């Protein structure tokens, strides 16, 4: 990301830069942190991990409390921590601020109790914020987990979150609204999920594959959340695009940074249930199996194609990065995809300079910029 920051320093527009990774699973978090370090807002063109968003944590924690006969202090208070608010709430009172919740939690016994015992314990206890009583009453009023009732309860929860919880995120966020955008995407996704939940839950109850309980609801939410793709649109015009290689197809971006060209990472072998001997026979098209269509997923061909797409997408320059050893000092070999690529190696001192406080683009990257000027002349 130091290179991206330097390209930006040299006036390269945001949309003229793209960072490409074969698989963002392990790269999203480090690239996110590195971007923020260099003062760049990143956007990752991958599905939102909705289960790691607050609105999801909120509905899940509500299900957990309702599923438990004797919730512990932590389980009980978790929805409040995730900014639960009663459907009729106003923004001046709700959600309860974290410190108040934690101080009240500290005053609660570290044990498991029934909801009504918790409720009785809250009432008239001066050490517990009185809004805890409202919360306990709401829990007590929650219906049995019939499909429609579940949807209504959770819809109320998430809509109230949209109304009162999300603005808190915005309030605490940096001007780039990274967290807010994530939270908003999570909210939209969870609202859809709650609607899907109603039908799926009803179906599963009919099939007899789930029992009627709030813990089933939580379990099913997890399942739906991890299966269904969310919206992938990103809203910030100033954010740097970070994509997976299968999304670079047909794009044309002047400066492409391909990250993680390590043997075993890119290309990567995909698992298949078809035995390798049969795969090979099908790919070769020998005999009757030849009628079956070839599958690039069985070879590393798809990864190669995507790397070719990455090369083609780069208008002015392709910058390839790889690490040479793991944290524990084991050697990491370069990707075989680099074997046939004519690259200029950035010398160690230029790399150090790039990473230093006095950041400077390596000469070979700087040459790409000059190349562009010459072209445009």
């Amino acid at each position, binding site marked *: 990301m130091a290179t991206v920051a330097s390209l930006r320093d040299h006036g390269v*527009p945001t949309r003229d830069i793209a960072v490409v990774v074969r698989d963002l699973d392990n790269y999203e*978090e480090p690239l996110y942190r590195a971007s923020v*370090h260099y003062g760049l807002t990143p956007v990752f063109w991958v599905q939102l991990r909705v289960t790691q968003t607050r609105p999801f944590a909120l509905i899940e924690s509500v299900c957990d409390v309702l599923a438990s006969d004797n919730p512990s202090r932590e389980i009980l208070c978790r929805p409040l921590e995730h900014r639960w608010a009663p459907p009729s709430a106003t923004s001046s009172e709700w959600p309860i601020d974290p410190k108040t919740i934690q101080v009240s939690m500290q005053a609660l016994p570290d044990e498991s109790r029934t909801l009504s015992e918790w409720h009785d314990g809250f009432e008239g206890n001066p050490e517990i914020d009185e809004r805890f009583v409202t919360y306990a009453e709401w829990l007590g009023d929650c219906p049995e987990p019939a499909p429609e009732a579940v949807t209504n309860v959770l819809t109320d929860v998430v809509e109230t979150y949209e109304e009162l919880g999300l603005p808190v995120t915005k309030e605490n966020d940096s001007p780039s609204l990274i967290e807010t955008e994530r939270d908003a995407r999570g909210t939209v996704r969870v609202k859809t999920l709650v609607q899907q939940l109603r039908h799926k839950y009803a179906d599963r109850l009919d099939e007899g594959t789930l029992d009627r309980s709030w813990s089933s609801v939580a379990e099913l939410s997890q399942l739906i959340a991890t299966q269904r793709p969310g919206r992938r649109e990103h809203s910030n*015009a100033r954010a740097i695009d970070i994509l997976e290689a299968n999304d670079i197809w047909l794009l044309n971006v002047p400066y492409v940074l391909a990250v993680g060209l390590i043997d075993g990472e890119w290309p990567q072998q995909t698992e298949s249930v078809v035995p*390798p001997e049969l795969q*090979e026979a099908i790919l070769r098209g020998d005999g009757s199996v030849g009628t079956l269509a070839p599958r690039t997923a069985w070879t590393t061909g798809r990864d190669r194609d995507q790397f070719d797409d990455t090369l083609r997408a780069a208008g002015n320059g392709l910058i390839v990065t790889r690490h040479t050893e793991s944290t*524990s000092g084991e050697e990491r070999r370069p990707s075989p995809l680099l074997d046939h690529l004519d690259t200029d190696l950035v010398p160690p001192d230029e790399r*150090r300079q790039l990473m230093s406080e006095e950041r400077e683009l390596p000469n070979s990257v700087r040459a790409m910029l000059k190349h562009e000027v010459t072209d445009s002349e």
Partner: protein
Amino acid sequence: MSDDPIRLQNAQRDIRDAYFEHDSGLYTLNCVPGAGKSEVTDHISAEDILRRYVAGDPTPEQRVAAISFNRSEAESIIPDICDRLREIVKHDLVPAASKVSDSEVEYLIQRIRQAPFVGTIDSILRDVLSEIASDIGFEEMPVVGNTARQKQLHAACYRAIQEDSDLAQRVERLEDAYPTGEYDDDVSEMLETAVTYCRDRRISTERFHSNLEQTVEDVYAQGRPGSFSDVVAAVEHCVGADIDESAYDDIGDDERNRICDADSRLHDDWRARINDFCTVLEEYRITYRQTIRDRGVVSHTDVAYLVDAYFDDRLGNVDDAHRTRIRHRYQTRIQSLIIDEAQDVSSIQHAALSHLVTPSARVFGAGDLLQSVYLWRHAEPTLFETATDDGEYLGIDWDIHEHRTAKTTYRCVPDVASAINEISEAALTDPARGNLGALDVRYPGLEADRGSTDESNVHIAAFDPRASDPDSYTWVKPVEGRGEATTLATLLSKGLADGSFTDENDDSLGITVLFRWSSKMDVYEEAFEEMGLSVRNASEDLFECSVVDVVLDVCEWLVAPADPERNRDLVIESNLGLEPLTNNFETHHWDIDAILDGCDLTDAHQHVLGGLSELRDRRDSFLSRPAGTYAQDIIETLALRADPYGCFDIDPAQRVANLDALVETLDEWEADEHFTPSELTELIEPFRENPYMGPNQPSTADTSHDVEFRTVHDAKGDQDDVVAIANPGFDLWKHGPQAQRFLTQGSIAGLAPPTNTDIPSDVALPAFVNGLYDPEDTRDRDVGLRWATGHWCDDIAESADSTSLVGPERLRRVAANERAETWRLLYVALTRARDHLVVPLPRSLPDESRPRDRWLDTIREGLNFTGSQTGSYTVDTDTGPFDIGVNDVALQATWAETTTTCDDDVAVNPPRRTDLDPWVPRFTNPSTLYPLTDDPDAQVLDHLLGNALHTEANDVPDDVPLQFDQLGPDDVGSCLHEVLTTLVEREVPEHTLRSLGDEVRRVFDDVVDDHTTRIDDDERDGLFTFFGEEVLDDFVASDLWGDIQRAERVTVERPIDGLVTIDDVEIEIHGTSDFVVKLPSGEQHVADLKITLTDQTSETRRRYELQVTAYSYLFEQQESSESPVKRTVETFGVERDTIESSWPSNIVERRLAALVRQ
């Protein structure tokens, strides 16, 4: 790739020829270090695959398994086989090479990259486990080899045992007998070790019990002592000779009785505790068996054990047909098995592997018994020994067995080989040193293939030591004067400066300094840095690092940040630098906010407390996100990488690397689980208590370092140009079995006697320093008569065997095997050198020479160093003389680091989160452009949520005849809008529209049904009436309708996109025009439709005007046509209006520019 290919020679070639001569059989190669063991295994793997391909197998990589013990070596097997294959074909090294084209080679290389059975033994067995996991009670493939999760699992098993009321008394007795100590295994650790041992040896608890009993019986060979003379007999039994009993003359009868009584008690207590231990272990194993399945977590040993037990039918209740199928699949697949470092294979790995191989396979094993240094990790070198000697391996007595020994080393120069031979032959074949253990040592001797050089290759860094123990800091790096480390550093640095350790291009040679233990690395590093040498050292524990500790402290605090106790701990115990605020905290009841508000704080304190307060407020996000992620949050919020206030006394690059390593470790340990701060704290606790069990700190030196520090174990398998042996003066008995409570080595297991038996400490029992038994004192060669020792028999009784250690037979064997392995370790260390071997040696010894107890004395003897030589001297050997240089570098030469380092930005500047540029919309829509640009802050959330952006509007008048029961005003608007556009799209004729004919009603109903299914007839009819009267009538009367009627072409809902670039920020506008009407004149009418239920406000009007203008702007961008374009927003419903805009189209850019430049 070099143009000069490696050609197999001598024994390498012989064994390869034998291997390919047959279709099955066992082929073993015993190699001296540097004999090209890996080259042979790579060659055989590559040629085997090539031959199979040439013979017509299109997927030959499926038949060849190539495995190694060491993970980093295993990772390079595939690339190395690929390289070798290319080399074989390029240089036509074997007959099959000429039968493949270049493209076929590339095809084969692609295939080899997918080879399923290449890697570590563990990885192959993991593959097998994945096939059988569900068959043996796992829900899915378990997590394998995750140290932290395994620790957690064992902790859970131990808790279960503690809570078992039937075992409570036994556990309590065991805990009393074996209390937790800093360097001692406690009961839980011993149970953990016992499970692994039993699984590795495939033994029942009963057999394990008898194994422990045998050790007791051996220690009390004469049985329970009945008199003091029995105790004396035990001493003689341990020494193996008559001893001078006059040493006991001073012990009076009372004392003799006390000793005898105590010894009897110890005997009884010991057996009782072993009984307790095995009873508890039996339950522990049952719990463990179930818990690994419940939690889906297993160790590598478990994997091998389960694979073996599955095929051996010891697990019960498995599907026979499936098992037969799986066995058959592996046995038909693996037709060639190539094992590198075969001496390191453990008993259970060997057992598991044996199920995958049949006598029709070809097995090649390469190894070196003299490099067997993993006894402590349950390596079983005798398996390879039996393979080489008897042709038995993997449970098969092979009909065809070929064995070769490769003595030629291609690694070191002749003088280094001679020096190694001089030191090692004597040491390894000596029955008091290398040949002390069970392994039958034959020293083949190194024969160097490389040519001699005209310089010294063996160097002694000679120094005059201060009178002290050769393993002490005073010896290694005294406060005054030059010790061992400084002398070695001097020789290396001056050698770099004067060209002794540079190549023909004056480039520095690679230098590795090898250590037996990492404990002296710190002072060595200090000495080396003082001499201007940059050191790469990756041997320090990650969890020893202060900044890493802080992250974990904060995680722990976040479990309950309002808890005053936790706040107190964080302030007083952690390295956050808050301790000076203790009084303030006490005054303010440990409330961070109160301190922030009410105290005059330094910037550093303000920063830390502000960060903590922020983290506390975000605690909830830590409950739903991975630990690695929230650890990053902590690091970022407290700016730990940059450490702007200098809180941590640690090199900036190391600080950053350690924090990165922490995050990576947490990610790895957590795998797919999410640990809350409380769960994480529990997971990490054992590693914080014993940091050596966790990962090491990563090295921050890049390729430019001068010297690398490694432990010998870590360097096994590697080589370097210059190798120095550091700290050779440690005592070999240090950390020996006498210092261990629980011994599990090969077939011997032993649990030390309990520590809480009352034994008189005031009565000596010569020659045991610690009398009968005193386990507290592990610094000596013994902890008393009744456990293992590090004494030599002839030190106690002159007549005794000088090659035997004192102790009962079984414990003596354990000690002897450990000792013998240490000598092999020295051999491994010495044989890492290519061009130069360097050892620091004292000119004089503080005491008499003890070659059987120290490397130092053995090396000194081997190199004939008397202390008086200077410059260089010659050592004569049977194979010719070689030279040794003593401090043979130019004294005036000075080595200065040539590279200047500057810290990375990340180590200097905190993350720039607050400096991130403000959000600017990337995608906009003409219809929402007005509200979004007018008040972005108020509209951004709705924009992000994809909600409608509302402008200030009037309330729906009461006289609007609509019910809004199921459809609210917004729904009504979008419904009627859709009905109208659909009617136009379907080209419904005017008379049908005017008469509200059936088709109109059908379209209306369809659209309404799409929006809601619950609307009742009254609401539906009311809405239809409203549509007919207030919308459709006006629509048919409008100019727009007139244009539609006359049009050449009408496009409904046409997307119109454009791009606005402000400075270098691109904003996309994506609109959909309801109607684009192309008239015969060429003129176009672009119209957007609004259904209004209220009277317009000035705001809504402006909104519509900007929308119209935006469409103009987009059309101007898109179309070069000269024909005029008419743009309107048409409102129907409560208010009928046609809005055209007089605004210039660049107002769009101006409004967006204001957003960008705000």
